[in-house]
C-alpha cells in the first residue's frame, strides 16, 4: 500500500493505481475523457491535468497516466491546472457544433459535463469549424462526426476491446474520421457499445433517436434475460414504452459492455401481439375472475383425480421467486411437485452446474484473467455473447484459448480451434487418448486454467467428464475452474430449486394422469425438444392454463390465459451461469405504450381510470393471490432462504450490485453411462441457437430483424459432395423428431460428419440441448 496526499486528503492505495483512480477513491473528480476504466488510459485528451508537488520532476501531469508513489503530494484545483484544463476544454470545443438542443446525447453527455467542470464557458474562437460527411452505419447506430473530440474511445472499444474489424480511424491530424470503409451495417455483435462509450453525441442509439431525453426516462438497474451470462443492464422507458437498454456495470460479470442482442432485443415488452388481457376460452375476463376460476378448477381437479392431475410448469426464464412460488402453490393445493424446466436434458445439466460444479465455478472476470481457457462445445456468440468478449480479454493479456466444437465458431480473438463432431468430443472428454492427455497436461501446467463447458452440446455425460478433468487438473496452489454455459437467464436458479428425483414433463404427461397443465412463463412447445409428443399430450388434457408475457402459440391455445410481466416490469432474482444471484428491479409498469394508443397523434380522448393494457401482473403476485398469501418480496426471500440455505445472500441482495455467489454444495456421486453407438449411414445432428432469434426474447424483438438469417442446413463441403449436394440445393433431413426440408449451405469451418441447423423463429422445430442426435440427409423437396 502506498500513501499519498491529494488536495490535503490522505489515502492508502495499492501500487500500480493512477492518480486519477486514487482521486476517484477519495471522491475527488478529476475531469477526463480518454480514460475509461475498462479501456485504460492513453493520455490523448490532456483534460486530467493535476499538479504533482513532489519527486524529481514536479509540475503539471496527466492524472490518468501517472502511477501513485509513496509520499506523493498532489493538488487538483490549483490555479495552474485549473487554467490548463479550461484551455483544454476550450480547445476541445473549437470544432464542436453548438447543437446540444438537437443532440441525443444531451443530458448524459460527458463533453457537456467536462466542459462545464473545466470552467470553459465563453467561446473566443471565431474561425470556421471542421465538418464531416457522416456514414450510414446501419439500423442500430447513428453517426454525427462533427461532434467528435478525438478521444479514440470508439476505436478502442470496437477494435481493441470487442475485436471488431470493420471500423477504424481514418485520416490524420485535424481530419481524423472514425467509421467504416464504406456505408453499411456495423458487423460486430457488440456494436452498440459505441453508444455507451463515446463520451459525446457522435455515436447514438439509432433505434432510440429523438424518442426521449435521458432525464425523462424511467430507468432502473436490471439484468439482461437473453442468455445465462446475466449482464447488468439499465433499461429505460417512457410513456409505457421500453425505449432502450444500455449497459450497467458489473465488474465481475460484463464490466460495462453488453451485446447487441441484449441491447436491441428488448422489443418483446412492447410487442404489438403481447397478450394483455386474461381470457377464458374465447371470453375476455378480468384477472381476479381468471384467478378465481383457476383456483376453483385446481381444487376440483385435485379433488376428483388426485395430486397427479394438476401439473404446474415453471421455466428457466422465470425468476427464482416465481419458480419457488410454483412449488408453494403445488403444496398449497396438494398437487405433486411442479416441473420447473420442461427441457429435461437442460434441467439435468443445469443441476450439474448448480450442485456438482458449484464449488469450482469461474466468473467472467476469472476468464478475463486466465492464461489458458479450454472451451468445449460452446459457440459463445450464439450462447453467451459476453463470454466471447471475456475470452478476447484473456487473449489480449497473453492468455491462450483452445476451442473444441463442431460448429464454425467465430471468436473475436485468436484461438486454437479444432472442429470435432459431438460424438468425437464426448470420446475426447471420456478419455481422449493422447490428445486428451495433452489437453489435461496443458491445464495442469497453466497458472490459472479454466474450462468453459457448453451444457447444450456436452449434455450430462460431457459435463460429468469436465468435472473430472477439472478435479484432476486442480492442485494445492490453484483450482481449475469451470464456466458452464447454460441456456436461460435463470437455468441455474431453476435447477437449484427443484428436487433431483422429479420425473420430466413428458413422462408425467404420458402417464395419462394429468388433467390440467399450468404453464407459468413457460412454453414447452418452443423451449423443449419433442414438441410433437408434447403437442399430442396437450390434446389429452382437460385444461391448459398459461400465464405468460410472450405471444407464444401456447398462450393462444390456452383454455385459460392470464397475462404476466417480463423482467423489466417486475422485480426479482436470476441466478446466472456462474451461480451469481442477480437482482433486477422494475423499470416500467405494464401498459400499452402511448406510441400505440395514439400513433403520432394526440393521446386518446376517451377517459378511464385504468391505464390501457395494464392488466398484466408479475407471475409472483398472481401466484401469491392464487394461494391467498400476498407478501412483500422481502418476506418471500426470507422464507425461500429458510428452505434453501444456499441462497442466504438473497435477503440482502440489491439491484445494481455485482451479486453474490450461491453457497457451494457437495458434489453428488455419478455413474457414467457408456457412449451410444452411432447408427450406420447417419450424420450427427447439431442444433444450435441462432445468434439472433435463438433465445425466445429476441424472437419478439423487431429491432433485431436485420441481423437474423434464414434457416438452412450447414454441411462441410466434403460432406455435401459425398451426398451429391451443392450449396443452395434443397435437402431433406430425417431426424428422430421428424423430417425437415431446407436449403443446404457449404461451411468449410465446421466438423465433418455433421449437419448443423440453427434454432430460431424461422426454424423452431428442433431444439438445442436434446443430446446426441443423428440424421439422414438426402437431396430433394422443394425449398420451403
Amino acid at each position, binding site marked *: 500500500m502506498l500513501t499519498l496526499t491529494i488536495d490535503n486528503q490522505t489515502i492508502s492505495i495499492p501500487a500500480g493505481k493512477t492518480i486519477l483512480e486514487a482521486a476517484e477513491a477519495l471522491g475527488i473528480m478529476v475531469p477526463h475523457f480518454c480514460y475509461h476504466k475498462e479501456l485504460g488510459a492513453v493520455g490523448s485528451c490532456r483534460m486530467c491535468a493535476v499538479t504533482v508537488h513532489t519527486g524529481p520532476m514536479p509540475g503539471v501531469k496527466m492524472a490518468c497516466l501517472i502511477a501513485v508513489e509513496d509520499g506523493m503530494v498532489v493538488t487538483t484545483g490549483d490555479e495552474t491546472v485549473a487554467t490548463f484544463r479550461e484551455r483544454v476544454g476550450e480547445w476541445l470545443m473549437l470544432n464542436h457544433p453548438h447543437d446540444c438542443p438537437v443532440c441525443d446525447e444531451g443530458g448524459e453527455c460527458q463533453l457537456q459535463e467536462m466542459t462545464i467542470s473545466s470552467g470553459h464557458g465563453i467561446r473566443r474562437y471565431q474561425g470556421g469549424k471542421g465538418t464531416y460527411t457522416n456514414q450510414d452505419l446501419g439500423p442500430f447506430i447513428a453517426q454525427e462526426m462533427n461532434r467528435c473530440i478525438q478521444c479514440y474511445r470508439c476505436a478502442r472499444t470496437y477494435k481493441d476491446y470487442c475485436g471488431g*474489424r*470493420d*471500423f*477504424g*480511424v*481514418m*485520416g*490524420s491530424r485535424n481530419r481524423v*474520421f472514425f467509421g*467504416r*470503409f*464504406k456505408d453499411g451495417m456495423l458487423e460486430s455483435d457488440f456494436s452498440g457499445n459505441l453508444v455507451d462509450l463515446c463520451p459525446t453525441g457522435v455515436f447514438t442509439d439509432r433505434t432510440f433517436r429523438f424518442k426521449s431525453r435521458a432525464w425523462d426516462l424511467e430507468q432502473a438497474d436490471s439484468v439482461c434475460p437473453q442468455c445465462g451470462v446475466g449482464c447488468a443492464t439499465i433499461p429505460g422507458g417512457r410513456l409505457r414504452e421500453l425505449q432502450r437498454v444500455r449497459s450497467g456495470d458489473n465488474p465481475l460479470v460484463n464490466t460495462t459492455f453488453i451485446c447487441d442482442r441484449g441491447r436491441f432485443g428488448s422489443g418483446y415488452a412492447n410487442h404489438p401481439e403481447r397478450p394483455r388481457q386474461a381470457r377464458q376460452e374465447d371470453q375476455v375476463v378480468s384477472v381476479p375472475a381468471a384467478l378465481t376460476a383457476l383456483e376453483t378448477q385446481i381444487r376440483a381437479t385435485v379433488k376428483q383425480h388426485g395430486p397427479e392431475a394438476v401439473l404446474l410448469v415453471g421455466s428457466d426464464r422465470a425468476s427464482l421467486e416465481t419458480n419457488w412460488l410454483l412449488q408453494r402453490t403445488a403444496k398449497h393445493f396438494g398437487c405433486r411437485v411442479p416441473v420447473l424446466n420442461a427441457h429435461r436434458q437442460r434441467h439435468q445439466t443445469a443441476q450439474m452446474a448448480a450442485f456438482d460444479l458449484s464449488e469450482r465455478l469461474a466468473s467472467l472476470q476469472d476468464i478475463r484473467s486466465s492464461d489458458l481457457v479450454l472451451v468445449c462445445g460452446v459457440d459463445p456468440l450464439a450462447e453467451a455473447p459476453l463470454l466471447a468478449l471475456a475470452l478476447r480479454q484473456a487473449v489480449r493479456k497473453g492468455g491462450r484459448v483452445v476451442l473444441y466444437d463442431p460448429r464454425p465458431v467465430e471468436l473475436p480473438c485468436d484461438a486454437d480451434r479444432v472442429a470435432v463432431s459431438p460424438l468425437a468430443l464426448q470420446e475426447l472428454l471420456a478419455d481422449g487418448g493422447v490428445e486428451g492427455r495433452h489437453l489435461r497436461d496443458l491445464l495442469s501446467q497453466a497458472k490459472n486454467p479454466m474450462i468453459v463447458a457448453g451444457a447444450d452440446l456436452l449434455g450430462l455425460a460431457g459435463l460429468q467428464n469436465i468435472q473430472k478433468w477439472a478435479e484432476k487438473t486442480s492442485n494445492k496452489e490453484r483450482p481449475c475452474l469451470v464456466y458452464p454455459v447454460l441456456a436461460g437467464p435463470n437455468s441455474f436458479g431453476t435447477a437449484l430449486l427443484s428436487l433431483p428425483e422429479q420425473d420430466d414433463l413428458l413422462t408425467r404427461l404420458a402417464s395419462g394422469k394429468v388433467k390440467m397443465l399450468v404453464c407459468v412463463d413457460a412454453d414447452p412447445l418452443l423451449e423443449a425438444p419433442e414438441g410433437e409428443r408434447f403437442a399430442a399430450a396437450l390434446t389429452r388434457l382437460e385444461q391448459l392454463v398459461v400465464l405468460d408475457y410472450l405471444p407464444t402459440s401456447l398462450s393462444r391455445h390456452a383454455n385459460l390465459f392470464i397475462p404476466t410481466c417480463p423482467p423489466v416490469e417486475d422485480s426479482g432474482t436470476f441466478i446466472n451461469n456462474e451461480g451469481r444471484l442477480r437482482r433486477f428491479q422494475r423499470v416500467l409498469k405494464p401498459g400499452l405504450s402511448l406510441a400505440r394508443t395514439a400513433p403520432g397523434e394526440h393521446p386518446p380522448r376517451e377517459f378511464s381510470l385504468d391505464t390501457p393494457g395494464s392488466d398484466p401482473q408479475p407471475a409472483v403476485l398472481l401466484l401469491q393471490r392464487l394461494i391467498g398469501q400476498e407478501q412483500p418480496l422481502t418476506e418471500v426471500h426470507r422464507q425461500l432462504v429458510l428452505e434453501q440455505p444456499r441462497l442466504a445472500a438473497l435477503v440482502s441482495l440489491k439491484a445494481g450490485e455485482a451479486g453474490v455467489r450461491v453457497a457451494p454444495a457437495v458434489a453428488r456421486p455419478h455413474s457414467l453411462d457408456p457412449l451410444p453407438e452411432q447408427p450406420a449411414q447417419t450424420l450427427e445432428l447439431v442444433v444450435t441457437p441462432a445468434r439472433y432469434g435463438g433465445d425466445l426474447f429476441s424472437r419478439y424483438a423487431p429491432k433485431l430483424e436485420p441481423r437474423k438469417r434464414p434457416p438452412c442446413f450447414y454441411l462441410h463441403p466434403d460432406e455435401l459432395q459425398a451426398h451429391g449436394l451443392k450449396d443452395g440445393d434443397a435437402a431433406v433431413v430425417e431426424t428422430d423428431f421428424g423430417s425437415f426440408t431446407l436449403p443446404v449451405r457449404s461451411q468449410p469451418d465446421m466438423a465433418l460428419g455433421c449437419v448443423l441447423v440453427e434454432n430460431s423463429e424461422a426454424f423452431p422445430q428442433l431444439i438445442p440441448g436434446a443430446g446426441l442426435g443423428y440424421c439422414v440427409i438426402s437431396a430433394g423437396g422443394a425449398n420451403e
Partner: protein
Amino acid sequence: MTTIESQTTSHLLDQHILADFIQHAGEIEHPREMIIDVLRAIQLHHGWVPDDGVELTAAILGLTPVEVEEIATFYDKIFRRPVGRFVIHLCDSVCCWTRGADEIAAHLQKTLNIEFGQTTADGLFTLLPSCCLGCCGIAPAVMIKQQFYGPLTPEKVDELIATLRQEGSA
C-alpha cells in the same frame, strides 16, 4: 493462398507483381506490414489508389478494407483521389517557413491558378502542402516525383513550371 480474379484487377496492378505480393504475403508472419508497399505499387500503376485498390490490398493481405484504409488515409503521399501528372508537395514546416515558403506558396497558387488540394484544369499539376521533406538544407523546397527542388524563389518556380509543362506536353 489467396485467389484473386485478374480481369478485375489488371487496371490496378501488373499481374506479375500481384502474384509476387500474394506469394510474399503467404510467407511472412504479419502481412499487414506490406500495406504501404502494395498501395504504392497500385499508385505507380494507376496514378492513385481508388476504392477497389484498397479492397485489392486487403484481399492480398488478408485484412479488412478499413484496416488498409486507416493506413492509406494517414499518409499524404498515398493519393485516394485522382491527382495531376505532377504532384507538387510544398513543404510547410519550420525551416522552409523561415526561408519564405509562404511567398512560394502564394506564387505557386497564383501561377497555377489553383488552391492547395486542387488540380489544374489541364490535369498537369496538383498542389499539396507537406510536412518537412527532410531537405531543410535547400529550404524552401518542393518535392515532385520524388525529386527535390530548392532553394526556391518565384523565378525558379516559374522556370520549374515551364520545364514541367514542356515535359508534360511532350
